[in-house]
């Protein structure tokens, strides 16, 4: 625990200091990383803590992005309010998604979330008056305010805004998973039938966690639209859902911090590989399979295993003795 706190604070310190020393293109990458990290972390609530493996989490991102893009293009609402509104809207829609998808369990649940995302994808394609159809929404501005505040619209200001969202969301998730509610989620993850038999209404807990997870995913998407200046159907596509799941698994599910690292790893790998070879996705696939086979606990799992090595050896020794 000490180690993770130390690493986390160091990381946060570096992130806060980053704008001072980094060139603009690196700032762009870093901002995207923060947003993707938030997105991956939001999925971890479902995948890592509740074993609800969503294959359609792009739906949350896309919903948030379209909602914030639409509001920024068509209203004068200041950026921070837009982002919060978009996240809330995503969460409310997710109540319905959760209600339907939790009818099923296991692989069927995964497929249902995928179907929902694809349904939204199909809608975004055709509902041109709102979504811009296949062109998507372009030229999304970062509206200043509230009170004429323009600090958030600059490159560094927006970065800090996104970073602030990530930190708050992280703390929120941390509190949530450590609470009595979080303990029930763990129960559902390990043995849902037993959790139900103990008298917990597991379906309600699952719907709640889907809604929270989607709302935070929507928050990430809502940040992405003004960051990139556009929102298009790609953001709702199943491939993106698969990618964010990879980030969670590669980073280490059920750890919150792991998926953020996973997002960073994903982005760096994509960035590095794509500058060497056209076929970066091929290598990415190989790296991913290697993780599933050889390091299912992910990057953060490897780090904390390394940190806990002494303690684990002790426990093992005790059991044999």
């Amino acid at each position, binding site marked *: 625990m000490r180690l993770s706190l130390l690493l986390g604070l160091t990381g946060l310190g570096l992130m806060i200091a980053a704008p001072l020393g980094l060139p603009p293109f690196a700032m762009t990458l870093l901002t995207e990383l923060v947003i993707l990290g938030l997105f991956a972390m939001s999925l971890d609530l479902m995948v890592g803590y509740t074993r609800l493996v969503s294959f359609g989490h792009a739906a949350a991102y896309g919903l948030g992005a379209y909602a914030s893009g639409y509001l920024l293009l068509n209203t004068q609402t200041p950026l921070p309010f837009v982002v919060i509104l978009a996240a809330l809207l995503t969460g409310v829609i997710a109540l319905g998604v959760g209600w339907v998808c939790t009818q099923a369990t*296991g692989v069927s649940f995964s497929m249902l979330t995928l179907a929902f995302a694809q349904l939204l994808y199909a809608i975004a394609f055709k509902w041109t008056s709102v979504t811009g159809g296949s062109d998507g929404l372009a030229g999304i501005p970062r509206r200043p305010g509230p009170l004429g505040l323009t600090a958030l619209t600059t490159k560094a200001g927006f970065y800090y805004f996104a970073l602030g969202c990530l930190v708050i969301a992280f703390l929120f998730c941390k509190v949530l998973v450590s609470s009595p509610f979080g303990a029930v989620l763990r129960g559902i993850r390990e043995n849902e039938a037993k959790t139900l038999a103990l008298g917990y209404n597991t379906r309600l807990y699952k719907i709640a966690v889907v809604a929270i997870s989607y709302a935070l995913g929507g928050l990430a998407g809502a940040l992405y639209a003004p960051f990139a200046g556009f929102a298009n159907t790609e953001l709702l596509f199943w491939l993106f859902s698969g990618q964010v*799941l990879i980030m969670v698994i590669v980073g280490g599910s059920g750890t919150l911090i792991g998926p953020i690292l996973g997002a960073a790893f994903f982005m760096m790998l994509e960035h590095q590989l794509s500058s060497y070879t056209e076929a970066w996705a091929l290598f990415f696939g190989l790296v991913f399979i290697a993780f*599933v086979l050889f390091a299912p606990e992910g990057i953060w799992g490897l780090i904390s295993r390394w940190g806990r090595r002494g303690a684990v050896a002790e426990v093992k020794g005790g059991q044999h003795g």
Partner: protein
Amino acid sequence: MSNLAFLLTQLVNALSQAALLFFLGVGLTLIFGIMRIVNFAHGTLYMLGAFLGYSLLHHTGSFWAALLVAPVIVGLLGTLFELTILRQLYRRDAHAFLMVTFGLALITGEAVRLIWGSDALQVPPPPQLAGVVFMLDEPFPVYRLFLAGAGIVVALAIWQLLERTRLGLLIRATSQNPEMVHALGVDVNLVRSGVFGIGCGLAALGGVLAAPLVTAAHGMAATAVIDAFVIVIIGGMGSFLGSLIGALLVALVQVFGNYYLPDFALAFMYLLMLLVLVVRPGGLLGKEA
């Protein structure tokens, strides 16, 4: 065009579409039935079939050779993947498979792009099937009729395989109780390798057959894998008959939806699936999820 002629052509159209969807869905459902895994790479293997078909057609000059050889190659690749990677994961939970096959989809998709380039490739139908026939005075492509026929033939063949042969018996038994089959002295792993190969081969068969209609293109992978999932979910995971019904329903929704409400055809498919799942979470012929 008379109403009757219109209905007939649309129905045969849907039947030919259902045939393609069935090749996709039945492979996925067979694999799921035996191995309890969802093959995310299914659409990519379908696409690989189409591109392999293109190359084989150009090298041999025969569509029929391509139709035979491409599924065999993809089937062998599938078996190889099962032997080297999937086999190590049977003790892990279902999601490890989803992720590994997602990785396979990424790799295969990229490999196809490297080998064949990014452009869509034209695959002409064999000359015997190139023309049109007249049904109630309406012209109709022979190739689509052929597809519908091929779908019926393959469906009957798989049905007979499952019902009448020893392999079919093993497949059905393994899907119900692998421990028991293992206890009877059958190498369950061999059945798994075989079925995974057959499933992949069927996807490739669909790919070769689809190529003359839609060209061999990268986009077909994503569409195919989603369509395949929808079919299997509607029909019920692991159910042969379910995949047949699912393919027919989806084809009908696609063909008639495209005609009457082209803007909503895609959404209709997902709505159909959600509807089925809300009423029967395990799919029409599936066990409870």
